[in-house]
């Protein structure tokens, strides 16, 4: 049973990754004028950096040349994509797409991971408290504001935060991952600089997503409170804190973790736009610059890598789930 479940999940992951790679291959071909070829043609004609561009065009022809049958082109594209060979950047020629991505990746993962964990923890706790018999007044007072913030996309809230904290009050930096004059290095001052710059982007993700977690958790907690074991715990005279954490929260948490797996894609897409608004040097900004320069191999590469990361994360959450829920674990054992 357990193996079958893992096998099915793995097949789903492969299907998703395969679809993403195929879309990257097919969509330019379906467009009225193949944008990749148009861009390459433009560059060859303008002849700015002639030798460099010829190299890309030659590599492109070798792989996608019109004299090759479509199926063969598709085959070699899928093969190199799955081996993470994403080609060269057109705009920054000698740079390979994968190197550009690897340089940007730590920024995105750091920002997204921290912000999501904070939002998940705070939101889940808040939702659970909202459904509890005696919720603190602070939680009650904050709830409507948090719910309204959940209506906004991350980047829009980001703009509001820039407007207030960076523009009007000038408390925090507006742009970038670190100051223009700072030299990157393993020092405390540089770490502090990174922290200061990541505060607003992280805050916009946290504030805009707490509400979603709180709303979902509140619903689950209300359902759980109607269960017999909650009444039994109370009848046994267990202290409220014990009933809240070990009986209520623990059981209501499971659907939240499933929701986390489903939300990862949404979060990553949201983070792309946040990075663009803040000029944060992660994948989102790389993607934005590639769009500005019609650097198609970078666009397709970044999209593919993000899809790959999302699919992997979903698989991981799915595999970790049995550790949280003994019922699934038991079911798998038989």
């Amino acid at each position, binding site marked *: 049973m357990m193996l079958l479940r893992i096998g099915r999940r793995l097949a*789903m992951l492969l*299907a*998703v990754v395969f*679809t*993403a790679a195929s*879309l*990257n291959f097919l*969509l*330019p071909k*379906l*467009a009225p004028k193949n*944008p990749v070829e148009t*861009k390459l043609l433009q560059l060859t004609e303008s002849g700015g950096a002639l030798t460099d561009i010829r190299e890309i065009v030659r590599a492109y022809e070798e792989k996608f040349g019109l004299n090759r049958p479509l199926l063969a082109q598709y085959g070699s594209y899928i093969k190199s994509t799955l081996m993470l060979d994403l080609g060269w950047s057109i705009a920054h020629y000698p740079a390979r797409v994968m190197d550009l991505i690897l340089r940007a990746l730590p920024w995105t993962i750091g920002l997204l991971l921290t912000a999501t964990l904070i939002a998940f923890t705070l939101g889940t706790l808040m939702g659970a408290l909202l459904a509890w018999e005696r919720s603190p007044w602070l939680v009650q007072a904050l709830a409507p504001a948090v719910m*309204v913030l*959940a*209506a*906004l*996309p991350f*980047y*829009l809230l980001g*703009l*509001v935060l*820039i*407007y207030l904290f*960076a*523009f*009007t009050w000038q408390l925090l930096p*507006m742009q970038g991952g670190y100051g223009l004059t700072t030299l990157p290095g393993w020092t405390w001052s540089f770490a502090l600089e990174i922290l200061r710059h990541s505060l607003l982007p992280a805050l916009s993700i946290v504030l805009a997503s707490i509400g979603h977690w709180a709303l979902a958790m509140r*619903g689950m907690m*209300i359902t759980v409170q109607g269960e017999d074991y909650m009444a039994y715990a109370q009848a046994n005279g267990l202290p409220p804190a014990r009933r809240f954490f070990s009986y209520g929260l623990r059981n209501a948490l499971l659907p939240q973790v499933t929701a986390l797996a489903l939300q990862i*894609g*949404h979060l*990553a*897409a949201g983070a*792309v*736009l946040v990075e*663009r*608004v803040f000029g944060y040097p992660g994948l989102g900004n790389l*993607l*934005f610059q590639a*769009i*500005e320069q*019609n650097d*198609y191999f970078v*666009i*397709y590469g970044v*999209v593919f890598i*993000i*899809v790959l990361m*999302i*699919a992997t994360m*979903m698989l991981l959450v799915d595999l970790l789930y049995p550790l949280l829920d003994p019922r699934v674990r038991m079911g798998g054992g038989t």
Partner: protein
Amino acid sequence: MNARLAGGLLLLGLLVAFAGLGALFVDLADAQPLSAAVARPPSAEYPFGTDSAGRDLLAVMVVGTLLTAKVGLLAGIIGIGVGTTIAFIAAYYGGWVDRVLSLVIDVLITVPGLLVLIVIASAWPGRMTTTLMALVIASLAWRDPARQIRAQVLVMREANYVMMARLSGRSGMAIIFAEMMPNLLPYLGAGLVSAVSGAILASVGLEALGLGPRHEPTLGMTIYWLIFEGAFLRGMWWWILAPLTVLVLLFVSMYLLLIGIDEFANPRLRRRA
């Protein structure tokens, strides 16, 4: 009628009134570049100020709201239409047709929409229009309606009144349109609101990334231009304030509408509130 639904309708009404009255009283041509003085703060002549390309921001907000609504409605309606059709095909024929369609829907729902839309939209560099934008977004907007409506149709197919109609020898089409559709209307309505708000969210996001129509002043393009031209660094607060206010109103109203409709259609949630 509950408080959230009412709040959402009120905010949406405000925006509709703003765009409607604006379309009557404001010269919409001023939303194009070079039609007003450049980079002016709000004044009697330009109540919302002007941007660095000489667009009158009041006109931009009116036109932008209308264009953004157009993209959302067009993509949402196409999404619901195509989604419902696919749902009926899957549920009606069943068997391997249903299995293949369900698999396609499942895989596509897992692929993050905005990223795929980025790849699609980037194939039209500089030639994007709002209509094309709506079509691009509609190409993915059918996924959720298809899944939800399919589930509803599967339940409905076993209902007594459908059995009754089938036994009375009514044709497949007659059963779909006379028996099932009327009962699906609430779901279709809720699905439409959700699809339209999703489409607006996607369109503003794509536009902010620079994939939008460069010659049409939508709300998302206004966000793109103000970041691109460095409105913050130039201290042009009015340029930021106007689109932010309109977009925040728009998104909050749609969110309230969605929750409100959910509560309205699902009494179980109401009792908990």
